[in-house]
Every structure is written in C-alpha cells, then in structure tokens.
C-alpha cells in the first residue's frame, strides 16, 4: 500500500494536466445537484419561517359554501386568542363597460393576523377598506389596468359599488391560497353583504384564522378539531405547513430536478470514465514497465485508484463550492422570481447529498477503466495494444460497480422521497446507457460493414470516416454514450413539454367551451338561457345544477381510512342531480334510475375514479352537502372525460335526493371567438352576480404556469447537455493524438488537407447524428411513458423537437470535432511519424 501511495504521489506531480475534463464533468454534475438542493432547502426554510404569515394565522379552519356555525365559532374562539374571519370566492369586477374575473377576499378588521398588506400608495389596510361614501377596496395592479381603473375610481362586485383606494402590491397570505384564475380584490366582509354574491348555494369558502396562545400544541389542537368536527366539512391547517400545495410542489419539482441533475452526473460519469481511460492509455508504458519491475495488478489498481480518488475529491469539492455559492450569489434574483419567501444560506444537507452522489458516480465510472488497467501485461511494452476495445473487467469489479449503482439508486430514492420517480429515472438512465452501448456497437459494426461495401469505394473521405467510426479504439462509444445520454434527456423533456403544451393549447380549445358561468341562481336560469341564445355566434349551452359535497364515509367507515388520500376525498367536489340519464352519460356498470324515482338517494359515480377508490355497485357513500349528511347508494358507474372541459361531475345524484337544497347552476357556453366579447358584456350586465370564466384566459394561465415549469426543467436538462458537450470536447481532445497520426499517414500517402478535414467532419457528424437518433428513440419512449402513465394524456411523436435534437447532436459533435481538427491538419507528417519511431 505504501509503495502504491508513493508511486501515486510521484505520478501526481505532473499536476492536473489531462484531467480538466474529468474535473469539469464531475464538478458540473455535483454543482447542479447541490444548487437545486440548496434552492429547495431555501424555499422550504422560507415556507417554514413564514408559515403563519403564509397561512394567515397559527391555524386555520376552512369551510366551503357556508360560514362557521355558532358551535364551531365558539369552539374556535375558546382555543384562540383571536379569530379572524375571511371569505373567498370568484367573481366579476366591473368598471363601466370593462369586466374582469377576480378572486375576491372579504376580510374582517383583524385581517391580517400575521404579516402585512403592502399597498400603493402606502397606507394601512383598515383605512383602505373602511366605508366612507362607499366601502373601500384594493385590487392587484393587473386587474386595475385591465378595467382601466385608477385610485379613486369606483368598481362593482355583484350589486355593490366600491371605491378603489389603492393597488394591492403584496398580501402576506397569497402563497397559501393556491392557484387562482383571477387577480385578487380585497374588500371588507361587511361591504360584501349588500353585493348579493354570498347567498345560499353560491360557491364560496370561508376561513377562520386563529392567533393561538404561545406554546399551543398544534398537533393536539388539530386532532381535537378533527375529532369534534370530523364530518362537518371543516378543513384544518396550521403553520407547521402553511402552504401545503406549494411545499408539495417545491418538493416534487426539487426531487424531479435532482433526478435530472443525476442524469447530468451520469453523463459526467461517462466523461470521467473516458478521461481516466485516456489518461491510462498514455500510461500504458508506465504500467507495463511497473509490471516488468514486479508490480502486481492490485498495486497498479491501487496506484491509479489513489490518483483518481484524489482528483474526484477535488472535482466534488469544486462542484460543492459552485453549487453552494451560486444560489447565494443569485439569491435575490431567484427570490424575486418566486411566489414564496426563501432563505438563501449554506445548507449542509443538500451539499452532503450532492457530494455523496458525486463520489459514488465517480467510483462507479472509474472502476471500469481502472480494472482493465491492472490487466495490462508487461508485454504491452513490446506490442502496440492501445486500442484494446471494450473488454469487460473481471467479475469482482463488475460486482462492485453493480453494488455501488444499487447504493446510488437507493440513496436517490431515500433523498428524493419519490420512489417511483427515482426508480423510473434510474431505470431510464440505465436503460438509456444500455441501449446507447448497444447502439454504439451496432453503429460500429454497420460503419465497418459500410466502409467495406462497394458503395463507398472511390469515396475515400467517407470511407475513412466510416472506417474511423467502425474501427477499433476510436471515440465512437464514448461520443455516442455521452452525447446520446445528454440528448436523450433533452429529447425526453422536449417530447413531454411539447405534448403537454399541445394537450392544453391545441387539442382542447377545439372542443372546449368559450365560457364557464358559475353561480346562476335558480330564478335566473330561464332568462340567462334566453338572453344567451339570442346572441349572435352562440352555439350549444349546457347547464347543470351545482352543489359542493364532501365524501366523508364509505360504507359507514371514514372515507380516507378506506380509500386513502385520493383527490376525490381531498376537500369538496362538485355534485349535481339529474332525473333522467344525460345524453352524454355512457354507463359502464349498473342502470339509471327511473325518471320519477323518489326512493332512497342513489348516485351515478365516475367509473375510473370509482375503480381507484375501490368502489363497487351497491356501496354506500355519505356525502356532506351544505353541512347535511346524505347517504347515497351507487346505482351505476359512468365514463367521465375530464379532458373535454365540458360539464363533468364525479357524482350525479337522483333529483329527489337534493330537492330543496339551495343551489345554483353552472353553464358552459360554446361560441365563436368573435362573439365572446359582446356576449360577456351582455350577460354580466344582466346578471351581475354570475361569474364568467373565459376558457381561453384560463388556458393561458395554466399554459403560463406550465411554461415556468417547463423552463425550470429545461434548465436542468440544459445542465445535462452542457456536461454532455464537455464530455464531447473531452473525447475530441483525447482523440487529437490519434487524429494527428492519421492525418500524418494520410498526407504521406497523398491526401490533401481538404480531404482529411472532410473525413474528420464526416465522422463527427455521423457520430453526432447517430447519438441524436438514439436520443430520439429514447426520448420518444420516455416521453410516451411519462405522458401515458404519469400525465395520463395522449402521446404523439413530436417531429420538430426530434429533428432539432438530431441536427443539434450532429452540429455539436461537428463543432467539437472541428475545434480539434487544426492540430492534425497543421502537423508536419515527418515530425509526427518520426516521433513515434
């Protein structure tokens, strides 16, 4: 060991020359993972620190469709020092002829319990909302601009006029509110009373934010609340997790980006492996000499393992430095882009995680070439065996590589907490590497065949290129693997992104309605339909009664205990009723009830969701509607296509079951695009309480949100590609010696520089295009899998994205190849060839 150490130290005296690619590959991969992890930790710390402000209180009880009952209210007051009441709903803000969808929040005078509302011009929220001649209101600048409002102007919500006192720059609890389709308007609860918007049956949520005595046991309080009001539809949240939606989102996105980072590290690993192989090729003589002098294979392995180990530590260290400093340096920029608070500082956790990933990856990828180095025979001194091909290391080494890979994957599962995603990504990377390795082999065999075929005879540049691609040694495997994996990640992201965008922006609008109308009162419905039908360009109008209900029990047992955390059971869902079977309802099981059915309540349930919940015909569900429990029996299952954006309900009850429950109607209206504007003006003037949601606007909002997501993912994929390009440059640089020699020989036998250059360019382009082709296959496969199994949407092959990837691959490879073509072309043959004699 000590001899190995001394020899390794002597060898390292040469410094880092020849190891820059090694270091860059490792450092880039580690830095990307460390940076993503640090940003995630920063956001999580921000959410935790400002949990109460984001939630709007230490704890919050929320109801849908109703305010708290006397009993609920007095219990809340008994546990809290202060209780602040707010109401939240969608509505239309109107100013003159302009109207816009807005998310209204009515607040009491305790609002906000925590944090601060920032207004422009600066003033406190109480005086901004107080009643003078009119009650006051504030709204986000984007809405005020859309309505053409300036501070001091008036606007209407429902039938109530408000004076715009200021623009809403920031509300402390916006991040906890989730995804809203409209900009925010804040008014007082009292001001809303005359608006006619909060009536029985209209859709609104109420929140009761609590300021709790210091030292309150949040967990005990949550249990108490849930035991006491288990089935009243009360939803409890507290500051331990003030924005569960965002926390979950950040967690998932973070995990996903770390996995993208891991694929970058895998690409980097290939570069590391290639760098080590190329370094060892240069050391063939040294190794053979050491063997001649009596060094065993084990000593040789140890000598170079020590060297590579030290270099790995340096590479990982550089990566950690970069990954830790980048979020710190860019902290203010990142925070400005985030809708949530973030605390950027040094987080050891993500750095340790990135370091472990980096070291494991380095180990996995260097053992292969190192294991082969120890098999070099002393006879290598006397015979040129540099181009030894891809022989396998001995089995103990393969076992170690497999074990380290398993540890890496297990850690990825553990750290990310998303086992399916992690295993999927790991499987994807391993499969991609395997496919790429096989493809590299196939490409070599085909190139070799083609080089010998009559087709290319007389085309020496092409045959030389094919010969180089197909011949022994060469960079075929390393270029196809590294560039191929980088491009595969990019192709996958591209395929998924384009498919998702298409699903939203192209497929849907063809069948989607122009508007959803919410909160149409019973007595308004006939007039609404009449006026709407009288408008030009209006097509079909569908309406349905609309209530909200929470499934609390399944066959008498608490629903979540039976079916787990399914989205149907999370909060309230839309419920409707129908006497006869709707035309569009296609039953998969059971039968519809007779038109005049008045027996015990029955329900028609969505087939797919029913199956996910494990429901069968005859099961009994308890649905809490407006605080009243209704026990319904499943009469049939029916196909529900949520993708068509029409009116879809998971549950349709028989008419008698909901008779008498106060409710409103929902309508979908199909119209030509040109008719949409006048239609909206006419209908919202006639029915000020009715809320219109433009489907086009909604789609734009969703597209924007997805665009941000796609951008984040693209950055991750770009990091992988940059690593791939570095590996490519490394491969090109490593191949320079070989090309200098080839060029010298070719010049000797009469090839001009133009021909040599053409041959070099051709081989680079062939390799790049092949890597691109494999990437398309891999990307299409992964894209299909993600769209089908994760997004549950249709997949269609995206040709443009694919072509971009192939040509991108060819160009990248070409550029890297040409960047290193000068030395071979410029070298004098005599000097090159004599130096090898």
């Amino acid at each position: 060991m000590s001899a190995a150490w001394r020899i390794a130290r002597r060898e390292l005296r040469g410094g880092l020359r020849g190891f820059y690619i090694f270091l860059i590959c490792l450092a880039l991969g580690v830095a990307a993972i460390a940076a993503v992890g640090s940003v995630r930790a920063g956001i999580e710390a921000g959410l935790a620190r400002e949990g109460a402000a984001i939630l709007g209180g230490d704890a919050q009880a929320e109801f849908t469709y109703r305010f708290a009952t006397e009993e609920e209210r007095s219990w809340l007051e008994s546990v809290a020092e202060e209780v602040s009441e707010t109401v939240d709903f969608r509505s239309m803000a109107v100013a003159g002829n302009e109207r816009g969808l807005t998310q209204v929040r009515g607040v009491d005078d305790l609002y906000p319990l925590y944090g601060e509302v920032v207004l422009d011009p600066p003033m406190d929220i109480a005086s901004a909302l107080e009643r003078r001649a009119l009650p006051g209101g504030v709204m986000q600048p984007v809405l005020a601009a859309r309505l053409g409002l300036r501070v001091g102007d008036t606007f209407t919500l429902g039938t109530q006029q408000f004076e715009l006192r200021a623009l809403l720059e920031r509300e402390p609890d916006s991040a906890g509110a989730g995804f809203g389709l409209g900009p925010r308007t804040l008014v007082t609860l009292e001001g809303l009373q005359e608006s006619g918007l909060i009536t029985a049956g209209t859709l609104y949520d109420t929140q009761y934010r609590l300021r709790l005595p210091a030292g309150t046991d949040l967990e005990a309080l949550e249990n108490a609340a849930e035991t006491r009001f288990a089935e009243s539809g009360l939803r409890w949240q507290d500051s331990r997790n003030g924005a569960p939606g965002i926390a979950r989102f950040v967690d998932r996105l973070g995990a996903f980006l770390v996995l993208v980072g891991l694929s970058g590290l895998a690409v980097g690993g290939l570069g590391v492996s290639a760098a080590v192989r190329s370094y060892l090729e240069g050391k063939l003589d040294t190794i053979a000499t050491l063997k001649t002098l009596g060094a065993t294979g084990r000593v040789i392995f140890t000598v170079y393992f020590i060297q590579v180990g030290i270099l790995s530590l340096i590479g990982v260290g550089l990566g950690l430095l970069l990954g830790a400093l980048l979020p710190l340096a860019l902290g203010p920029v990142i925070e400005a882009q985030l809708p949530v608070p973030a605390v950027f500082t040094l987080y050891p956790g993500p750095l340790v995680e990135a370091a472990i990933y980096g070291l494991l990856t380095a180990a996995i990828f260097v053992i292969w070439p190192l294991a082969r180095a120890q098999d070099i025979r002393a006879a290598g001194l006397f015979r040129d065996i540099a181009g030894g091909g891809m022989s396998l290391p001995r089995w103990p080494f393969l076992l170690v590589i497999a074990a380290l890979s398993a540890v890496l994957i297990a850690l990825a599962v553990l750290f990310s907490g998303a086992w399916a995603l992690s295993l999927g990504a790991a499987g994807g990377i391993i499969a991609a590497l395997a496919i790429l390795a096989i493809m590299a082999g196939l490409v070599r065999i085909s190139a070799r065949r083609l080089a010998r075929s009559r087709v290319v005879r007389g085309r020496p540049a092409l045959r030389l290129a094919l010969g180089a691609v197909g011949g022994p040694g060469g960079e075929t495997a390393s270029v196809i693997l590294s560039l191929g994996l980088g491009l595969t990640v990019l192709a996958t992201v591209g395929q998924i992104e384009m498919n998702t965008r298409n699903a939203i922006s192209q497929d849907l609008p063809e069948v989607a309605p122009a508007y959803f109308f919410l909160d149409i009162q019973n007595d308004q419905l006939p007039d609404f339909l009449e006026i709407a039908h009288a408008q030009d360009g209006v097509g079909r109008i569908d309406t349905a009664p609309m209530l909200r209900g929470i499934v609390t029990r399944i066959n008498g047992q608490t629903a979540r205990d039976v079916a787990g955390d399914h989205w149907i059971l999370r909060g309230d869902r839309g419920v409707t009723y129908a006497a006869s079977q709707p035309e569009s309802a296609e039953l998969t099981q059971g039968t519809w009830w007779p038109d005049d059915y008045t027996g015990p309540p029955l329900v028609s349930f969505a087939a797919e969701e029913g199956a996910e919940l494990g429901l069968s015909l005859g099961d009994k569900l308890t649905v809490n509607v407006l605080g009243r429990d209704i026990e319904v029996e499943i009469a049939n299952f029916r196909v529900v296509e949520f993708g068509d954006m029409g009116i879809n309900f998971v549950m349709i009850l028989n008419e008698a079951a909901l008779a008498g429950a106060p409710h409103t109607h929902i309508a979908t209206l199909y119209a030509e695009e040109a008719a949409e504007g006048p239609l909206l003006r006419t209908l919202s003037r006639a029915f000020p309480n009715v809320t219109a949601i433009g489907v086009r606007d909604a789609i734009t909002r969703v597209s924007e949100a997805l665009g941000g997501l796609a951008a984040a993912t693209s950055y991750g994929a770009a990091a992988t590609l940059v690593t791939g390009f570095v590996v490519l440059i490394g491969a090109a640089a490593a191949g320079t010696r070989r090309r200098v020699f080839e060029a010298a020989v070719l010049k000797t036998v009469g090839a001009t520089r133009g021909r040599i250059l053409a041959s070099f360019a051709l081989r680079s382009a062939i390799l790049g295009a092949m890597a691109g082709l494999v990437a398309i296959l891999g990307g299409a496969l992964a894209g299909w899998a993600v769209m089908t199994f994760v997004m549950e949407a249709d997949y269609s092959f995206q040709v443009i994205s694919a072509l971009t990837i192939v040509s991108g691959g060819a160009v990248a490879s070409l550029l890297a190849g040409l960047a290193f073509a000068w030395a071979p072309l410029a070298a004098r043959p005599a000097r090159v060839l004599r130096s090898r004699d």
Partner: protein
Amino acid sequence: MIDPVLSLRDAKLALDANAGRVEILHGIDLDIRAGETVGLTGPSGSGKSSLLMIMGGLERATGGTVMALGHDLTALGEDALARFRLKHMGVVFQSFHLIPTMTALENVATPLELAGAADAFDRAEAELTAVGLSHRLDHYPSQLSGGEQQRVALARAAAPRPAILLADEPTGNLDGPTGEAIMDMLFGLRDRHGATLVLVTHAPELAARCDRQIRLRDGRLDTLSEAAE
C-alpha cells in the same frame, strides 16, 4: 547523363527545439538517378532520416532546393506535396504507420482511392497477395504481427506504382529473418516496378545490396561509394 529523379542543392534543415535552433542538415548536394537504389547510412543523429523526409516532402527544407522529377519540393504547398506523393512516391517507415482504424485491405486501398482508381480494392488485394497476405485482408493492424504490418505498409507504398520508393529503416523493428524477408520483398517490388529506391538503414549488409551507399555524419555527406555490382 539521364536527368536525376531526385536532385538536392545545398539542402539545409534546421528545427526549432526547446534548447534553441538545431541545425540538422548542412547543405547537402546529391543527385539520384532513375532506377537507382541508394542506401543512406550513418550513425544515429547524423540526419539520414531527415534527409529522407525532405526528399519525400514530409519535412520542408529550410534552405537550398529539393527537386523531385523536375518539381521543386521546397516551393510546393502542403496539399501540392500530398498530391505529388500520391502520384510519384511511396514511403515505408520503421514503425509501419498503418492507420489503426482500417483493415489491411483498406490501408492499402487508401492511396489508390485517393488517386481515384475505380479498381482500388482489387489492386489492393492483388498487392497484398503479392506480399503473401491474402489471408489477412480484413485484419486490423493490431491483429497483425510486426512483420505482417510492415508487409502491409510495403504493399501500401507500392500499390500506386510510384516512381520513387522511400524507406526509413524498414527492418528496424523486426527480427533478423523477418527483416530479411521484408528486404527481399522491398527489392523485389523495386525490381518489378523499376522504381527508384532510397533506403535508410543501420545495417551494412542491407546497404551493401544497394547500387550506391551514401554515408552521413553530422548532417553532412561523408563518403560517396559505389557498391560493387
């Protein structure tokens, strides 16, 4: 007198090394006639390989002129030199210098293809058969012995039927019997095609097979001797 195929006048070669400029050849005057075989000998570092390299245009003389078949090689550009070799010259090295990514057949066919020969592969095969390698056509250099590699190199140099064959210690890396066989082939090729052969060698018995021996010492011509026929 027949015009010389190779004619050097005051040919000089100086190279820049780390330690400064090194004068390698100091004004060589030399004529080689068509069909002649010439052995270049001399101690290590005397400049014999460098002299061969400037004759082949693989190294550019830094002074004087190097005329080959009436062309001044010192005035030709890199690509013009390549084209000149393609038409008129074959070179064999001590270390064979086959392209490792090509089979034996492909290595031999390459200059023929570069010359645009339609039957490049047939001729290459015939050439390899002539050196006894018809059973090694599809082998890569790494799969061949040293002697076999040198035979491929010979075939490659001879295939385009060059007027001038240059050989730089072609048996230097081979054992005695193998080296002898290679030399027999080299002289056999020369005899068949009537090329001019310039051969760098350390071995006196090889030099003795040439029509003429030229000895170099410190970058200068030392002795001119006509070998006894």
